[in-house]
């Protein structure tokens, strides 16, 4: 018995050691990454903190949703948290659908979504927003780049019908006549085309579908939906998943938000819109297309209607707009000041400048003014 007691004593000593070790560990970590920051590639330009009004923002704000705006939100959050000490903004990048589900369950302060709330989702949001409902605030615009990886090909022009045929498995080789015709002077290999699409429901998929449906209704007969509708092709999870597959596989083509292409050096397709020259995917060319957008929402809801069939010079037609979804009335009291102050910053000139510096398209000034007004009125 004595022996056993001794060993039990030792066991509890060991336990105590583990617990105290964990406690010590708690004290030694640090959230301060400024040193690592300065050594990192300084491409991500953080704006001056002076533009950020913290007001009475405090505590922790959870948000989740679209992965298309993740890179922009990362930069915003970084600048915002540097300016407002004591505030934590935590944006989980998963997908638009997840963000809306989480929003309607009251888990998050705001959600990011690549498509506006559907009527039944608005209906559902009334449970969370006491006395109000969920509204869409257009915040981030961006081109959906068509990335490709074909050995020996640096520049590729495609139009909507060809793109549709590639993505629904009608065109199977890179040296297909249709592609050749659009790319005179380019030697195309006979590599098989491997088209990648998103495996989960995605706002990016829906926007690409809307574009193809609007511009090539004969070749693309599917209704635009978040779920990938066409046969064939391979699936990968998330924008980043598609991008990394395209980067790794010879003969691959896929679609994702432009910043994924620029950050990973993936070549993108220039789109032949019918304008005098094919349009390259870039923040400016996308801004031109988004500038033509009209507000379709009513009241404080600012959902947009985009013109995918635009033939304007230098306007890149495959675009998406990410909305921040919030309650117009009845936001949770503890997060409301933070939501207002954070969105105020993202909609400000400084916030929108972060977008154009990083491959996103800012929201047109006239719409942006309305966004700022709505943000002020949130309660």
């Amino acid at each position, binding site marked *: 018995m004595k022996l056993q007691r001794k060993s039990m004593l030792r066991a509890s000593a060991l336990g105590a050691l583990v617990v105290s070790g964990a406690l010590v560990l708690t004290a030694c970590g640090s959230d301060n990454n400024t040193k690592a920051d300065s050594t990192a590639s300084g491409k991500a330009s953080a704006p001056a903190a002076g533009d950020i009004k913290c007001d009475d923002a405090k505590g922790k704000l959870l948000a989740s949703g679209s992965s298309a705006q993740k890179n922009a939100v990362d930069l915003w959050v970084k600048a915002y948290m540097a300016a407002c000490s004591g505030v934590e903004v935590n944006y989980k990048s998963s997908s638009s*659908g997840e963000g809306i589900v989480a929003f309607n369950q009251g888990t998050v302060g705001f959600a990011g979504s690549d498509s506006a709330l559907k009527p039944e989702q608005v209906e559902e949001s009334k449970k969370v927003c006491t006395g109000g409902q969920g509204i869409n605030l257009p915040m981030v615009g961006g081109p959906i780049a068509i990335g490709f990886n074909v050995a020996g090909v640096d520049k590729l022009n495609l139009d909507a019908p060809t793109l549709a045929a590639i993505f629904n498995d009608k065109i199977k080789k890179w040296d297909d006549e249709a592609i050749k015709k659009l790319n005179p002077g380019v030697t195309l290999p006979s590599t098989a085309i*491997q088209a990648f699409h998103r495996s989960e429901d995605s706002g990016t998929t829906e926007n690409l579908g809307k574009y193809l449906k609007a511009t090539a209704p004969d070749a693309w007969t599917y209704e635009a939906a978040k779920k990938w509708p066409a046969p064939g092709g*391979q*699936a990968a999870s998330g924008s980043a998943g598609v991008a990394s597959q395209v980067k790794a596989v010879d003969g691959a083509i896929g679609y994702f938000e432009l910043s994924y292409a620029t950050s990973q050096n993936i070549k993108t397709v220039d789109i032949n819109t019918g304008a005098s020259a094919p349009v390259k995917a870039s923040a400016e060319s996308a801004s031109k297309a988004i500038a033509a957008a009209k507000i379709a929402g009513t009241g404080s809801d600012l959902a947009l209607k985009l013109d995918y069939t635009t033939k304007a010079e230098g306007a890149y037609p495959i675009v998406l707009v990410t909305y921040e979804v919030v309650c117009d009335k009845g936001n949770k009291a503890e997060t409301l000041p933070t939501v207002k102050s954070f969105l105020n910053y993202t909609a400000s000139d400084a916030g929108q400048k972060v977008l154009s510096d990083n491959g996103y398209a800012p929201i047109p000034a006239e719409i942006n003014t309305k966004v700022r007004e709505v943000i002020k009125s949130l309660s």
Partner: protein
Amino acid sequence: MASTTPTPLDTAPPVTTSAGSTGRAGDKIFAGLSKGSGILLLVIMASIAVFLTYRATLALSKNEGNFLTTFDWNASANPPVFGIAVLLFGTVVSSIIAMVIAVPIAVGIALFISHYAPRKLAAPLAYVVDLLAAVPSIIYGIWGALFLVPYLGGLNLWLDEYMGWTYVFDKTQVGVARSLFTVGILLAIMILPIVTSVSREVFLQVPRMNEEAALALGATRWEVIRMSVLPFGRSGVISASMLGLGRALGETMAVATVLSPSFLISGHILNPGGGTFAQNIAAKFDEANEFGRDALIASGLVLFLLTLLVNGAARMIIARRKEYSGANA
């Protein structure tokens, strides 16, 4: 699941044995505590079962497709259409591939450790295999996606070229090796340690006498194994395989990282595409609305029943073996 809830708790007979019925307070408290935690466990289990069944029936009652035969998963749409055919197929096929590859190799390793390896090597080897059983599945997942998939590309083309006539190995669709076949190989690697360590335990329990008797008759080492070790260990190997199968069926992250999911059933296992229950839940759950989640829970219930069946079979075989070896002891 509700139908399988056990007999009502109140019919349980008094559980204190003669020694415990001396009426001392400490005894009552302790017996009550331990009984209480047993009951707590039952309550948790029952509530999970009730919850799963309830949510699943909610989903099934509104399904516009046939739950068993529809080749689609569009549960968040209106009206919802979803079916588990593809998932069932993918789960079973990938697990079968895993078993076909893993079980013979695992038996080989188990024999190696128990009968072939130099004595000094055997113990550390057994230990290493046990450690590998503890490598988290997410790590197998990223290793599979970033390392195994590129490496299997050549093997896939080769199988397609020389074994293409078998239909199964005919790769009709271009694409990287993110196929059910690759998933099967990855699952095989993942379940190797568990199947090996259970088999090894069984092989080590073979009565020394049997082996020595065979050796004395002039049998070679292989003959000893074939005549005395394998017959003795057969049921043990079967149950080890079942345990491995149970793990392969429910594997989530490793499949989710490697497979290129699609809702098609194809006998060409080298083609990218297919899906499994767990992978589908992990991939779709984020996006699903409340009803979509219920539908996923319904598929989770099917997976649960499948795993239950397999584990139950394994336990029955193990239990039978215990009696058998007990009689021989």
